[in-house]
């Protein structure tokens, strides 16, 4: 419960209120960049213009984005999407099994806990050995790195379904498929989304790390390439793009989560 303060209702005013710290930090970046004469840390304005050169163009046919953009970004995003999708499907599936069967959960929770504690980056050399260079390694890294998190959160949600809902479902004699699809999963969705939210962040990190380490295309690889050829401004421009992608992905996820969990907030069942 925070103090009640009158908040401006006009959209622009609210944007200012929320973002002035961000603006402050960017301003700081600009200042430091100009002052320090090291080539490693260009000022924000310079990075912006490089950004425009690298990624933006004035051709509507390609959505105002350069060929460079279309050569690099879709690859990275597709790996991210595929790897994460695998983790979501597998994670929810495993989570449901674990949640419904306490015995199975107790059996496998040590090893799952172990997998979760493993710094995913430690898997890089192994994944490389296993899959060689190329997309498979990245998919594996992202998928393996996030599936356990999703599974445990799903298991929590599934195991925690309100007793009354389950009792109602029994009294309605719902067939199994309906029970899972229409009762258990929706009831567990707050927990599931909590897991998904954190997993998105991890997936983004792993997406970049995997490509940086060993691959032949994509944004992470571009960063590595720029760094090795001493093209630092372009490297920062790539960072900025990655940052923007991260922000957009998180915002999109927030929007989806808000819509999907509307019932929880409205019914006053939200815990926080």
């Amino acid at each position: 419960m925070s103090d009640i303060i009158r908040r401006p209702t006009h959209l622009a005013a609210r944007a200012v209120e929320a973002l002035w710290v961000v603006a402050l930090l960017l301003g700081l970046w600009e200042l430091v960049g100009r002052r320090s004469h090291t080539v490693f840390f260009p000022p924000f304005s310079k990075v912006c213009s490089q950004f425009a050169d690298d990624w933006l163009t004035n051709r509507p046919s390609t959505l105002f984005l350069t060929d460079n953009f279309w050569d690099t970004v879709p690859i990275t995003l597709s790996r991210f999407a595929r790897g994460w999708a695998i983790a979501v499907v597998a994670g929810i599936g495993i989570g449901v099994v674990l949640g419904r069967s306490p015995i199975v959960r107790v059996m496998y929770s040590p090893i799952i806990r172990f997998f979760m504690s493993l710094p995913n980056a430690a898997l890089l050399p192994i994944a490389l050995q296993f899959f060689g260079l190329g997309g498979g390694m990245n998919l594996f890294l992202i998928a393996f790195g996030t599936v356990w998190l999703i599974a445990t959160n799903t298991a929590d949600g599934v195991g925690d379904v309100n007793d009354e809902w389950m009792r109602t479902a029994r009294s309605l004699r719902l067939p199994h498929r309906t029970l899972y699809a229409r009762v258990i999963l929706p009831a567990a969705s707050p927990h599931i989304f909590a897991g998904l939210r954190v997993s998105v962040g991890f997936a983004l990190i792993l997406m970049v790390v995997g490509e940086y380490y060993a691959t032949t295309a994509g944004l992470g690889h571009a960063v590595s390439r720029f760094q090795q050829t001493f093209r630092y401004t372009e490297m920062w421009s790539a960072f900025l793009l990655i940052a923007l992608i991260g922000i957009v992905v998180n915002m999109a996820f927030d929007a989806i989560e808000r819509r999907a969990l509307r019932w929880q907030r409205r019914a006053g069942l939200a815990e926080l």
Partner: protein
Amino acid sequence: MEIAVDGVSKTYGRGSAANPALTPTSFTIAQNEFVTIVGPSGCGKSTLLMMMAGLLGPTSGRVLLDNVAIDGPPRGVSVVFQDYGRSLFPWMTVERNLAMATVSQRLSRRELAGRIERALRNVELVGQEKRYPWQLSGGMQQRVAIARALVAEPRIMLMDEPFAAVDAQTRAGLEDLVLRIRDAYGVTVALVTHDIDESVYLADRVLVLGAGPGRLLCEIAVPLPTPRSQIETKRLPLFADLRAEVFQLVMRPRESPL
């Protein structure tokens, strides 16, 4: 459909930690009868209803529907729970919630729509199909729960303190609603309540349970005229007498078992 409760009891725990929620109890409910089950807290009335609903297994005895012992929630029986907030699914619209009651029956779309329309009409919530439970008041939500029980077109309706969570005025309306529904659908009703007035007002017969440990004290017939009216019926001397009788039985201090 006739319900026979035959020597049903429920004991939790074992040995010295055993807690007898309900001692062996037997009674029958005839077709189309409206029976209320009333008693102080701890008398096992909700436990009894859950066993009749097949949601709880008895420690001894059995529940028979038309002379067939039940084993789990049986066909033809609908349950209305006390806490509508937790019994309706908040992520589904009213329509979807109602449809859940017939998933096991595999109805055609037209049949289902028809049943939903009829049920909503009977609980006076026509036009609310697309709304979500959290958009409705407490009384309306409980009516949706009742409608859901009706959509399955049950032979028996079991209600576990269904009006405990609503305010007194809403409760009066809901009581009359249930009576009308009993006539419209021709169902047999067993309703658990802690409200003594309600137990007499609604019933053809009152089953009074006692606590310490839970057991059936006696059955009281209620020959009040129908249709019942909140004002007229409650004015009758007979109502006052019956009410007093039930009151005495319910409020008696815990004694050793009879």
